Each structure stands twice: as C-alpha cells, then as structure tokens.
C-alpha cells in the first residue's frame, strides 16, 4: 500500500470528530435528496395514474376525426366485431365500449346540460374507477333499463337524490330526437369537480335502443395488462385497426397533463438544486476549515520531501473515502425511507383535501416512488457533489510553499 494511502486512512480514523461530522452532513443530504425526488415522482405518478384510471383509460380507440370533431359522423362502426378481434390480443386486460353524447337534463326545478354515456357496467368496473367512486345508492349493472349513475355535483345542481326521476332530451346517433325519464340509481364522486358536475352514465344496452347506437361507439377503452407498456401496445393496436380509426395512449390524449407534470418536475428540481448549492458550500467551507487546521502538518510533510501530487492524492483519497461512506449510508437511509413510504403512503389529512381535488386526487395519501435507478442516480450526484466540494480546499492548501505552511497561523 502506498504511504499516502496509509496516512489518509490514519487521518480518517484518528480524527474521529471531523470524520463523523463530515459523514453525518453528507449522508443526511443524500438521504434528503433521495427522499425528496422519490416523494415528488411519487406524487406525479399517483396524479397521472388517478387521472388516467379514473375514466379516460390507458388506451383509447376513436374515429380519427372524432377528437377534433366529435360529431355522429365520426363514430366507430361495427364496434362489437372490433372488440371481438381485439380480445384475441393477450396483452389486453380489459376492453369496454362507450358512447358519449351531450343532453339537456331537467328535474322538477332545474335544467342542466351534461354528458350522458352508455357504458358496459361489467367491463367498466375494470377499465375505470367509476364503480369505486360510488357515493350513494348503487353502481349500474347489465340488466338496467332507465337507471342512471350520476355525478355528485350534477345531482346537486339538479337538486336530486337517489330514487328521484330526471328527464333528458338529446339527439340520437341518427340525429333523431331522444327523450326519456331516468331514475337515479347511484351517485358517484371522483373528486374531479369538472367530471362530477357534467357526467352521467347508463347501461349501454338501454342507451343503444334509445339513441339508435346499436353496434356503434364513440370510444373503445383498453386497459393493458402491463400498464407501463401502454404506448407500445397502443402503437401495436393502431396497425391492426381499420383505416378510419385511431388508437392513442394516455400519454398522447392527456398530453397537457403529462406536460404540466413535467413542468412541475422541473420546478421541483430547481428547488432541490438550490438546496444542494447550499449544501455544496457548507461542505466546501467545512472542508476548507478542516484542511486549514492541518496546514502545518501538510507543510511538514512537504518539507520532508513529500511531493505536491502525493499530498493532493492523499487529501483526495480521504475525501473519496469519506464521500463514499456517506453516500452509502445516506443511500441506505434513502432506500429505506422511499420503500417505507411507498408501502405506507404519507397521509396529509382532511384539511388538504380541497387542494388535492384540484389535481384530481381523490385521497390525500401520497406514496413515494420507489425506483432503484433514480436512487442510484441521486447517490452518484451526491458523490460527485461531495468530492467536488473538497477540490477547492485541497488545491488551495496545496498552493502554499512548505515554509509558509509550517509558519501558518
């Protein structure tokens, strides 16, 4: 073993107080970095997951012009046959057909325009969170006739409760006039105000009779078995579809939300960045002080013939060893924190519920994101930061002449 390595290790072990403070500072910073990125990513992931799974779904098939012009000229025709074909794909967990249109609802006292959608109650249980959002009454089933499942805010607007009757007028798929009375079977609340105040659902079989939409759909929603692969599966499905249809993954049709999350991440990283610039200088100053306190020692080493490079290597080796130990300890703490809060989400309590609703979060539980790659990335960042912050003090102290160093006060 080279002598400067031996001296470096002795320096670390002999100077216990300094070693412990350095390790404590750096490992704590590492743990904080790992936890805060895990928390932020977790928050974004749960927002997206909630928003996607609530109703839009991971993959949507529509007529290619439907998104720009949602008219009855742009419907999925022969949708039953398409669903049968799609079911052969083993990567698909569930498929459900929807027919969405807008109608005018009216109760005894109020009239409100809102969306009504014919859905397949059984399939929709898997593809969306409609059933889980039940607030009062019951969710729909396949045999339902003129029973409606209505958003809580819409029910409030119409001043109705479960068991009440509302009527609607609208336009069928053949542009004919449609009207009927509906009995409220259930009321749901997703927490998304916009959705809860403009949406209602009925059994598609009943809907088809009324709106002349047999074998027609506006959307086919697909839930992949592996949700991480939604984009890939969507592209694969796209190739097999008839020319006038189009398949999009949530990353495409919810692009604005994805972008908003990305922007939020950037701001998050800027905040974390500022925090770490502070940490960088704290470590730098601390190292500077501790190296300066050893300046006489270094001067003597130089005087007895140790080369500048050897001094540099010695100090750098010390720094690398300390940083490595700190990052390792910090990493373990970070992993434990990220993993623990991934399984036991942080509960923020009822007072935050309002703000959470704006982001489409139904619950205030926030699990962290447990991603080993991200943790490794954060550990590497911290290691570079720790070693980097000691470079200036090392170079500075090495620039002294031996005689100056020995006489330094």
């Amino acid at each position: 073993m080279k002598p400067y390595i031996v001296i470096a290790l002795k320096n670390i072990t002999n100077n216990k107080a300094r070693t412990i403070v350095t390790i404590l500072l750096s490992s704590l910073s590492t743990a904080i970095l790992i936890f805060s990125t895990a928390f932020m990513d977790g928050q974004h992931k749960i927002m997206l997951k909630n928003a996607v799974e609530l109703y839009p779904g991971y993959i949507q098939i529509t007529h290619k012009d439907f998104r720009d012009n949602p008219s009855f000229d742009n419907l999925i025709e022969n949708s039953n046959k398409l669903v049968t074909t799609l079911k052969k794909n083993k990567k698909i967990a569930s498929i459900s057909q929807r027919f969405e249109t807008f109608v005018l609802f009216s109760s005894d006292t109020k009239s409100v325009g809102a969306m009504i959608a014919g859905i397949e109650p059984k399939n929709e249980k898997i593809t969306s969170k409609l059933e889980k959002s039940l607030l009062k009454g019951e969710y729909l089933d396949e045999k339902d006739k003129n029973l409606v499942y209505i958003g809580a805010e819409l029910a409030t607007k119409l001043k109705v409760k479960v068991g009440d009757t509302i009527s609607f007028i609208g336009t069928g798929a053949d542009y004919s006039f449609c009207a009927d009375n509906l009995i409220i079977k259930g009321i749901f609340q997703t927490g998304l105000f916009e959705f809860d105040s403009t949406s209602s659902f009925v059994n598609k079989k009943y809907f088809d009779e009324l709106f002349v939409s047999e074998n027609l759909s506006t959307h086919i929603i697909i839930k992949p078995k592996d949700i991480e692969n939604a984009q890939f599966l969507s592209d694969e499905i796209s190739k097999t579809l008839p020319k006038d249809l189009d398949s999009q993954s949530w990353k495409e049709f919810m692009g604005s939300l994805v972008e908003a999350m990305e922007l939020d991440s950037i701001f998050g990283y800027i905040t974390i960045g500022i925090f770490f610039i502070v940490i960088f200088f704290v470590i730098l100053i601390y190292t500077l002080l501790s190296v300066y306190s050893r300046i006489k020692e270094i001067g003597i080493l130089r005087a007895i013939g140790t080369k500048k490079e050897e001094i540099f290597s010695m100090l750098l080796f010390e720094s690398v060893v300390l940083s490595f130990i700190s990052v390792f300890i910090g990493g373990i703490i970070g992993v434990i924190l990220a993993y623990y809060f991934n399984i036991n989400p942080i509960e923020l309590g009822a007072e935050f519920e309002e703000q959470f609703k704006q982001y489409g979060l139904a619950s205030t539980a926030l699990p962290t994101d447990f991603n080993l790659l991200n943790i490794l990335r954060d550990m590497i960042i911290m290691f570079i930061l720790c070693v980097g912050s000691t470079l200036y003090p090392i170079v500075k102290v090495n620039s002294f002449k031996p005689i100056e160093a020995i006489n330094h006060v």
Partner: protein
Amino acid sequence: MFRYITLLMVTSIFLWASSAEDIIKKVEDNLNGKSIDMKISMIVYTQKTKRTMKLQSLSVGKTKSFMKVLYPKKDEGITFLKLDNIMWQYVPKIERIIKIPASMMLQSWMGSDFSNDDLARESSIADDYYQKLLSQDDNSYILELLPKEESTVVWGKVIMNISKQYYLPVKVDYYDEDGELIRILYYKNIKQYGKRFYPSYWEMIPQTEDKKGRKTIMTVDSAIFDKEIKSSYFTKRALKRYSK
C-alpha cells in the same frame, strides 16, 4: 316616339321598384294561405343514415302553427306550437312542455336540416327583410333580401328565385353575415290542391363543409287549404291535448 320610350322606361322603373314587395307578398300568401292542414313526410339523409318522419302541420296565416309527429313510433305524439315567434315543444314520453329559447332557434329541428327558426320564422320574410328585384327572365324573378336593421334575423342575405307562373319560390340561397353560402332550399313538383298551387317537394341542402353529405327532403302527402281550423289548436293546452 322618343317621348313614348322615355315614358315606358320611367313607368317600368316604377313597376320594378314596387313589384319586389308585391312579389314577396304574393309568394307569402301562396305559401301560407289563409290556413293549411297538411300531412308531410320528411326524409333526413346524413352521410351514413336515412330516416323518415311523418307529421301533421296545421297553420293559420303567418303567425300560428301547430305540428304533431305521427311517425316513427319513437317520436309519435311530440307536438310543436308556434304563436308569433315563440315556440313550444311537448314530449309525451317525459310529459314535459319545453319552451324553445331564442338561443336554440338556429338548432336543427328534430335532427333535420331545417332549423327551429325555419318553422317559426320563415313566414316573416316580408316584414324582416328589404326586398330588391335583382333580375328577371321569362320564367322567374330573382330577388335579393337583406335584413332590416331592427329585425333579429339569422341570415345575412337571402337570394330567392321565384316562378313567374305560380308566384312560388323555386330555389332559395341562404348566406350568413360574412356572405358565405350556408344552404340552399329547392321547391319542386308544384301541384294543385283545391284551388291553390303548392310545391309538394322541398329539398334542403346544407352547403357547409361540416354538413357534407346531408340533406333533408320534405314531401307534402296531402294538403287542405283555407278550411276552418279549430282555434283550440293554438293554445298551450293543445300541446298535451292533441298529442294523443
């Protein structure tokens, strides 16, 4: 000789000026009669579908009209009442009378290419528009109608092609305020009903891109003109009463 020609020209100019208004009055009178009791079939074509409706229409003069849907079964018994410019609809399935608000007058009537406004206001052309005779030939007059400032009409310009023989419209072009052609209405197959002549085939073809492939055809199955129609048809109570 020259003097006669001048005189002829002057008088003909006067004739021109007055005739546009007269023509419209005659046309409106021919279209509305004193009263009409009609059975109409309406076929609505969209890009992919074709749908038939049958209805009965009762009207007195320009201002009062009552309509009832007879077919299909799904819509049977839906009634409409128009008094002056106000329109109501009764839907028996939900037992409700709906007042069609001004904001919905431009909306399609029962999914056809005729608007609520067509059914409620078509007859006010003589009152709401300035008429100008653009040209004429042996068979027809061509009239330009521009909305009066105070009237609340939906069209920026209407060009009417009127048959000289019957004083009935043959073709009507509807333009919006930007001068874009929105739709064309053709009146064809003029038939004699009693003493009156009346177009028995109306064809509305929207011209805008978003309504490509759509058209609505209305044919008159039977029509009785100028008979006495019970005044009880033109009250709000009639909506429910005559729905059955």
